[in-house]
């Protein structure tokens, strides 16, 4: 494999350096001054975007990993195989970055290992912590063949391939548990979380939306890879993902409406208000727009249309997680929360680091397997151009 040189300066690279530098500065600021001066968190509002976005959305956006490995290795849907590697890489990066972000948010981050020996099985957070830790290990094992292939470590490769099926099954179980449990985290606050979002079905909604986001994220990544690495999935794979996404979104919508009806909250949706408006934004982005888009054959079968539908889905469920973590908790707290610049800087740097590391890995590791090169010779030629332009 040819190792391309990196071009250090371009507009987006400079933006990235700025974002990373600002994030680093904010992190130093946070560790020297404490959480009070460096955030807008208070006794009334102890969880902000570091939990609402970095943790809740981070784990959700990494859901492509278990969705795809499950579909390919357990359900044996072979045509999705070419996208397993980039998806597993995104998932692995996602979980590592979530852990980094959590270290910034924790008041005593050096005690993050305590759940290993200090158990409280009644705590949802205890369970999520264990699942995330184990699942990150699973993702490392699932991604290991890529690194081992690169360095031609055949013996280790054979061992890892030998245990791949139980590893994939363990990954799907662990993901089912913690994706839903991030919803269960909020089951303890029936008196605090707004009734638009508090429901005993929280874990089911978090799990279903994780699958939708996993599919949307895969479409999104494919489009991004096409743009930046000249690699793109064959359209028929994207179409399959689009159809699956539409089905999951419809199932989610039906369950969501049924839930609002049975809890007698549907009437409140008609009354204008802060929470109502953000609920409508969430529903429009996550459900209405993508379902309408995907229901047109012309949209569903073009890369551009699928890209739009997936971006809308992603933005919609990010809004959903922020509504649960922030919007829905504000009224009972009696305060409004908006993140301080330091909180935004750290979060932006985490996202930026994710893009940067994925870009580097895409260049240096064989994450787009050979079959896809053979299957689509055109993008490969395009990639050669990209490589050359990077080598200048």
């Amino acid at each position, binding site marked *: 494999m040819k190792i391309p040189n990196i071009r250090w300066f371009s507009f987006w690279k400079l933006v990235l350096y700025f974002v990373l530098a600002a994030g680093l500065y904010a992190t130093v600021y946070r*560790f*020297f*001054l*404490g*959480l*009070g*001066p460096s955030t807008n*968190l*208070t*006794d*009334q509002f*102890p*969880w902000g975007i570091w939990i609402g976005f970095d943790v809740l959305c981070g784990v959700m956006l990494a859901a492509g990993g278990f969705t795809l490995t*499950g579909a390919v*290795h*357990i*359900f*044996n*849907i*072979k*045509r999705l*195989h070419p996208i397993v590697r980039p998806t597993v890489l995104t998932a692995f990066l996602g979980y590592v970055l979530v852990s980094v972000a959590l270290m910034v*948010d*924790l*008041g*005593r*981050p050096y*005690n993050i290992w*305590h*759940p290993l020996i*200090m*158990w*409280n*099985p*009644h*705590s*949802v*957070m*205890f*369970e999520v*912590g264990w699942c995330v830790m184990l699942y990150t290990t699973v993702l490392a094992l699932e991604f290991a063949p890529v690194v081992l292939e690169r360095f031609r470590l055949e013996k280790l490769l054979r061992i890892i391939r030998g245990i791949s*099926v139980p590893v994939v*099954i363990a990954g*799907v*179980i662990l993901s*089912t*548990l913690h994706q839903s449990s991030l919803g*269960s*985290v909020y*089951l*303890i*606050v*029936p*008196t*605090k979380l707004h009734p638009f979002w508090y429901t*005993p079905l929280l*874990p089911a909604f978090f799990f279903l939306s994780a699958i939708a986001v996993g599919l949307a994220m895969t479409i999104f990544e494919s489009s991004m890879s096409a743009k930046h690495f000249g690699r793109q999935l064959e359209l028929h794979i994207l179409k399959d993902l689009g159809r699956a996404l539409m089905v999951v979104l419809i199932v989610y919508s039906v369950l969501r409406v049924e839930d609002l009806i049975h809890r007698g909250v549907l009437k409140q949706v008609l009354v204008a208000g802060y929470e109502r408006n953000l609920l409508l934004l969430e529903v429009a982005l996550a459900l209405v727009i993508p379902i309408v888009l995907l229901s047109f054959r012309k949209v569903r079968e073009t890369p551009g249309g699928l890209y739009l539908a997936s971006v809308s889905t992603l933005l919609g469920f990010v809004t959903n997680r922020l509504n649960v973590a922030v919007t829905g*908790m504000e009224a009972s*707290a009696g305060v409004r929360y908006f993140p301080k610049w330091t909180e935004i800087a750290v979060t932006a740097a985490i996202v930026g680091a994710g893009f940067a590391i994925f870009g580097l890995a895409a260049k240096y590791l064989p994450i787009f397997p050979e*079959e896809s090169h053979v299957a689509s010779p055109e993008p490969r030629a395009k990639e050669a151009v990209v490589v050359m332009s990077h080598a200048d």
Partner: protein
Amino acid sequence: MSKALLYDATLCIGCKQCEQGCADQNKLSYDDKIAAEQRQSDHKFTVVLAKDDKFMRRLCMNCNDPACVSVCPVAALRKTPAGPVIYEVSRCMGCRYCMIACPFGVPRYEWNSVNPKVQKCTMCSERVLAGKQTACAEICPTGATKFGERSELLAEARQRLRENPGKYVDHIYGENEVGGTSVLLLSSVPFEEFGYRTDFPSDPLPNRTFAVQSRIPDFVPLWGSLLGGIWWITHRREEVAKAEGQDGKKGGTK
């Protein structure tokens, strides 16, 4: 048996001796400026709120089945059999889930520290274990805050309601709220006026979580065997197809 506090707001004269006693017991500084603060904080675990000539205390309710204890991932918070809900800082990793979970919004954080602790009233657990009453109850000059067995204090509260019709709001706050608390309140003005919510369910909040969490041990082997079974069927079909010499419809090599 479980100890408790009974606070009768109609006996309170707003002298704030309990605030002073609490600060002394917990080695917190206390002066006129802090006395004037009308909210609980990391340096003020109990506060006497005043509205005209009516008073009301706020402090940790030390719930019977506390949400904070159930959510703490490292069991840094614990409900002691004697009643107090205590906090062990050496276990804490600072996730602040206890603050999110507490229905009364009690736990406070040392936001300005680089090595922060959760702070709250722990019902003078050391004193209680030593057979003494809490500092606030001991110092109270009017008996508005009274320490004792929870069951006895409940009986006394009921008696006060019965013998003084019309004097009190007909409700013992903390008898049933979120499964009952170790702090019981009586008042002549609605509790809502001092920020106490009266719309709480009477079942403990940890039940909501446990209803889901308790299923996990059953769910894992079930989901695992289902996934394993699907893997077996989808791959077996392929082997059969291969053995019969028909090329798999979808083709592709692994």
